[in-house]
Each structure stands twice: as structure tokens, then as C-alpha cells.
């Protein structure tokens, strides 16, 4: 311990001596490993280092499944990153655990944040402090395979706009073999993917309910809407037989492989779907209900500053965070990853709004909801189990939704007690 103080003193002395020379600060940036995100960040780091020769940024990535564990373990070991990416839904855990430090109001004034970013940025606020800023936001849309639409005699320029049209298109495009096995899906069913968000924030509302109370502390989908929404969802497999959970392992894989006519997925899938060359695909807004009500689920990964960053590292981290949430960085992120800019001026440009792929996602930001998860994986598991009870065990949707509501309420109560 004493040695460490002496070393620190020595280091301080040396740094005073070399004050005249350029000071090289190295800061560490963490995000999870995903090819396009890493490539985009490499590009941003190169630009940032060119503009700030005295700062170097070291990017470290971990597999998504390990990412939270790594961050928390690093915090416990006192070796956290200076800037790190986090899902908005992890904020409660990271903030209460002291992984993050609040953004200084001088470097990031609140009124500017709230004026420039889409309103969902407030999900990064706890008390009076912001704990991070998003580069990009993501929303959901309906992807459809134009080739399969044409083969089924549907107009590829007119994707379904209502739930009834969705079911009709799915019925028209689904293919079965002689034994009745599904060999090509009308629409993918994958609760472990994005379908739980579709059911929670979109279908439940479209069937007349509200999934949670305003503060997201009380589960309300059990009262109204949830049951009908689940029945609509599971009927796609059990009644219309146009989709099947686990078909081709994952919904996105089925769509990519040209074995599914439609899938609901997010902006983050654009980068991966753009490499499809066997068929043309299109994107449209999530279908409305019969009354024209639309909803969507928007989410984002934000970048925050680690609690261990101090002094010149903190200053460098703030500079870096400001750059990665700048309009320029958002444009690069949009081009490389395909995610929508989190600032309104960068997102709602004429070019973006005229883009047939981006427009449906951008329109959704107007009416999108952002679920405040306390335990994203746990709450998702509740939805997966809920659908499985109906699909595999023949439980009635009403009983299954009631059981899910109780289980999810327990998770929320446990996390907020």
C-alpha cells in the first residue's frame, strides 16, 4: 500500500516534469462484440484520435452473453472501463452498483440533451442526473421477403398494414409438406427474439390493454389486452399454422435463409440482412389494429462514463462521449450498423425519411414505447415461458397470462424492494 503511494507520488512528479510535452492519455472503451458495431466504433475511434492526438482509446469487446458479468466483475475488482456501452434496461443495476458516474452538467447540460435527443433519452435519467447518452436508437418493423410474396401472388409493393392483412399474408405465404410439416413460414415466431416486445408493447395495446403502470412498477397486461394478444400470437402457430417457434432455430435465421416470408425485427438486424443476396426484402411499419392504432418498442444502447475515471482520464472520457454522441458519429453509426441516430436533427433528415428501409423505423419513433426493465433477461424469460405454456402444454391463454403477470410482478417487486 505504502509502495503504491510512493509510486503514485513518483508518477505525479514525473508527469509534472513532462507537463510541457504532449500528454498521452489512454482511455478504455467497452462494448459487446458484434461485427458491425465494432467496425463502426473502430472508425469513430480513428476519427477521434485524429482530432485529439493526445488521447488514445482502447476498445475492448466481450461476447454479449458475458458482457454484463464482465462489467460487474471489473467493477468489483476496481478495474472498470472509462467509457462503456450499456443497454438502457441495465441502468438500474449499473447505477445502484456504482458502475457509472453521473454525467457532469457542465459538459452535458440537461436542457440541451432534452432538446436535441428523442424523448426516450430520459430512460437514462435517475433522480437529477443523466448516466449516459445514446448514439443510436432502435425500433421494430416488419421485414418481408418480396420473392416469397410474389410466389404467393401477393403484391410486393403492398406489405400488410393491419393485423388482419398480416394474418392473410402469412396464410398465403406459409408452405407445408405432404405430412403437414411447415417447410416455409408465413411469419416467424420467436419469443426469445423480438416477439416478446411485440406482444408486450404493441399487441397488448392493440387489443385494448396497457402492459404496465406508468412507472413500470405494476404489471397490468393481465387485466386487459394481454390475453387476447397472446391468443392472437399463439393462434399463428396452433390455428393458422403459419409459424412455429424454433423453426430453423431462430426467427432471424429462417428469414435470412429465405424460409420465412415475414419477421419482426429491429434496426440492428439491418446490417446483417443487407448481406442477403438470394432475394429482395422490404420493410414496413408494424401492422396497426382494426382501429388504426399502431405501437412500437424503441430501445437503445447508451454510452456512459465508468465510476473509476478521474482527472485527465475523466476529461478524455467526456470528450470521447461527446464525440460518439455527436451528429457526425451518429451518421457513421447509421451507415455502418444501420441504427437510427438518437438526435432528432440527425435522424429526421429528408434523405433518411425518403429511404424506404429507414422510414418505417423512423416513423415508429413517434409512437414507440420504451419498457423500463428491472431484469431484462428475467422478464423476457417470463414471456417465453408464457407462450410455451400455451404452445407446448395446452394451457389456456388466460391462465398463462395470469401466471406470467404474477411471475413478472414478483421479479419487479424483488428488484425494487
Amino acid at each position, binding site marked *: 500500500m505504502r509502495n503504491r503511494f510512493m509510486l503514485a507520488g513518483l508518477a505525479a512528479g514525473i508527469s509534472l516534469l513532462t507537463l510541457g510535452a504532449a500528454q498521452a492519455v489512454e482511455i478504455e472503451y467497452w462494448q459487446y462484440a458484434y461485427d458491425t458495431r465494432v467496425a463502426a466504433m473502430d472508425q469513430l475511434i480513428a476519427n477521434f484520435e485524429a482530432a485529439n492526438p493526445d488521447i488514445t482509446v482502447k476498445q475492448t469487446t466481450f461476447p454479449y452473453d458475458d458482457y454484463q458479468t464482465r462489467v460487474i466483475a471489473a*467493477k468489483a475488482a476496481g478495474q472498470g472501463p472509462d467509457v462503456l456501452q450499456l443497454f438502457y434496461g441495465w441502468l438500474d443495476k449499473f447505477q445502484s452498483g456504482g458502475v457509472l458516474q453521473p454525467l457532469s452538467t457542465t459538459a452535458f447540460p440537461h436542457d440541451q440533451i432534452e432538446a436535441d435527443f428523442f424523448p426516450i433519452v430520459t430512460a437514462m435519467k435517475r433522480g437529477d442526473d443523466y448516466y449516459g447518452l445514446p448514439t443510436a436508437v432502435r425500433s421494430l418493423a416488419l421485414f418481408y421477403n418480396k420473392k416469397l410474396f410474389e410466389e404467393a401472388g401477393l403484391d410486393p409493393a403492398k406489405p400488410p398494414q393491419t393485423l388482419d392483412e398480416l394474418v392473410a399474408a402469412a396464410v398465403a405465404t406459409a408452405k407445408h409438406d405432404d*405430412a403437414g410439416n411447415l417447410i416455409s413460414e408465413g411469419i416467424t415466431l420467436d419469443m426469445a427474439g423480438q416477439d416478446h416486445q411485440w406482444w408486450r408493447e404493441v399487441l397488448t395495446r392493440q387489443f385494448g390493454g396497457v402492459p404496465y403502470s406508468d412507472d413500470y412498477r405494476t404489471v397490468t397486461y393481465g387485466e386487459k389486452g394481454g390475453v387476447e394478444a397472446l391468443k392472437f400470437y399463439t393462434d399463428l402457430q396452433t390455428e393458422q399454422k403459419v409459424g412455429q*417457434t*424454433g*423453426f430453423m432455430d431462430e426467427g432471424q435465421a429462417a428469414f435470412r435463409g429465405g424460409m420465412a416470408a415475414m419477421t419482426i425485427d429491429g434496426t440492428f438486424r439491418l446490417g446483417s440482412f443487407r448481406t442477403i443476396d438470394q432475394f429482395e426484402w422490404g420493410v414496413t411499419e408494424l401492422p396497426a389494429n382494426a382501429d388504426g392504432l399502431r405501437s412500437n418498442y424503441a430501445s437503445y444502447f447508451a454510452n456512459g462514463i465508468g465510476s473509476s475515471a478521474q482527472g485527465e482520464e475523466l476529461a478524455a472520457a467526456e470528450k470521447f462521449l461527446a464525440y460518439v454522441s455527436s451528429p457526425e458519429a451518429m451518421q457513421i453509426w447509421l451507415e455502418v450498423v444501420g441504427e437510427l441516430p438518437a438526435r432528432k436533427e440527425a435522424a429526421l433528415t429528408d434523405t433518411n425519411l425518403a429511404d424506404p428501409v429507414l422510414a418505417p423505423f423512423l416513423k415508429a419513433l413517434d409512437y414507440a414505447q420504451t419498457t423500463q426493465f428491472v431484469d431484462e433477461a428475467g422478464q423476457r424469460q417470463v414471456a417465453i415461458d408464457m407462450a410455451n405454456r400455451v404452445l407446448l402444454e395446452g394451457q389456456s391463454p388466460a391462465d398463462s397470462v395470469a401466471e406470467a403477470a404474477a411471475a413478472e410482478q414478483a421479479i419487479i417487486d424483488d428488484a425494487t424492494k
Partner: protein
Amino acid sequence: MTQGATLSDAAPKGRVWDRFPIRTKRVIWAWAFLALPIIFYGWIRFYPTFQAFWISFTDWDILKPAQFVGLENYDKLIHDPAFWKVFRNTFTYLIIGAPVSLVVAFAVAYYLDRVRFMHGFIRALYFLPFLTTAAALAWVWRWIYQPVPIGLINGLLAQFGIPQQAFLKSTTQALPAIMVTAIWAGLGFQVIIFLAGLRAIPQTFYEAARIDGLGEGAILRKITLPLLKPTTVFLVVFSSIGFLRIFDQVYNMTSNDPGGPLGSTKPIVLMIYQTAFSSFDMGYAAAQTVVLFTILLIVSLLQLWVLRSR
């Protein structure tokens, strides 16, 4: 080593150290060398074990300092239906997996022992899966179990007009489907050990038995199986512990809904992993670990007692 050094340094040369007889010196040196691995092992193995017992009485979540909560975690465990489900699953893996794998492995070894033609090649084929990474095996099997149009088994079934099976997506078939993979993956090792055990039985016993006119069945019952007992005891304990700790296969074959639909394949180790590393509820996870430790201890002791040599 340090002990040796201090002993020789402490006393002037030619006094205390030289007065020890050579026997004592050897013992001291032996202990000095042994101390290193013992201390190291104790530090990386026993210390964390005792630490786990302590953590199981706290509410530690990595981020905040641990608070002593007494038996609260164990109380929660007893009243958690999810725990009893994984408890049942774990014992299903053990009670079906271990005997089936042993019987199959013995049958393979027993007949392979008599095969001279391509003996080495066949043995290698059985052993190959054991050398392969469990995760890679699990992903191949995951693909084999898929529904049509990509699954191998279901593709075959469909060609014969047999309805496809849900396998990993079913609450009843998923656990047996994973168990088959686990048995197959461990088979090679058990076959090799059984083969070695069979070879160790002196041929003269068999010759004597045949001269006395014993049939093959009687030879198997009266000579082979009793003399194979040490091998069997080892494999029973070894494979039981393996099935109680099953994780890789389950985790990799059902990673998009970890533990299978509605937790139907989830073993206790996967529950510990999820409690610890996705919910970060270390205290509760430690309590589950202590339960697993106790089960392993009891099962191993019980087996050693049942199969003890009289």
C-alpha cells in the same frame, strides 16, 4: 522449500542439520516439496469452498457489500418451485443417464474385447467424441434435432411420412434428447476403462472355468463381473458426478431458451450459473452450490459404501 531453506540457514552448517539422520532429512525434504502443492491446492480449492459456505448465508450481489442474512437463502430455496424442478431434472440425468451409459459402455467393451479385426480403429471411433469439445458436439446435435427443413432426424422421419418430433422444443422429449448426447459423448472414455479392466483379468481364470465346463453366461456372472468391480466402482462414481454436474450440453443445445422450454432440461448447475451470472444473486447461488456439494458428497459416499469390497 522455504522450510528447508530456513532450517539450513537458521543453524550454522554442520550443527543441527547434519545431526539429522539421512531418513529424517529425506522426510523433511519430501514435506518441503509437498507443501507447495498442498498450500496451492488448499488456497485455490478449499479456501473458495469455505468461502462459498459463508457467501450462502449472505445477500452478496457483487456490487454491494455482503450482509449476513442467516438461513434466508436456504428458506427461499426450499420454497422455490424452480429449484425443485431442476432438482428433479438433475436426478433424472443421474438415475437414467449413469446406469444406461454404464450398461452400454460395458456391452460395447465386452464385445469389442473379442474383436480382433480393426480393433484399434473401432476403439478410436468410440473414443473420438470424448476428445471433441462438448460445446461443438452440442451444436452439431442441436442441428440434428431441428425440425424440418434443416433437422437431420426429422428430415428422415418426414421422408417416411412419420410426423416430425419436437425434440429440444418439447417439454417431454428435450431432456432425453440431451441425455442421449451426453451418454454418447462420455461413452468412449467408459469403454476404454472397461477394456483395460477386462484385459487385467488373468486368462487362466477363464481357462480354468472352461475346463470346469462353465457356460459363457456363468463366466460373465461369476468371473468377469466380480473381478471388474474396482473398474465399475470407479466408473459409477465418475459418471454419477458427471451427470450431476451436467452443464455444457444443456447450455449449448438450448441457448436461446436456456434450460429448455419451461426449464424442462435445466440441471442444477445451469440454475446456479444463471442465478450467479445473470441475476448476480451470489448468496442464493452459493446456497444452491452448497446443496449440490452436499448431494455430490452423499451420492459418492453412498456408492462407495454400496460397492465396497467385503
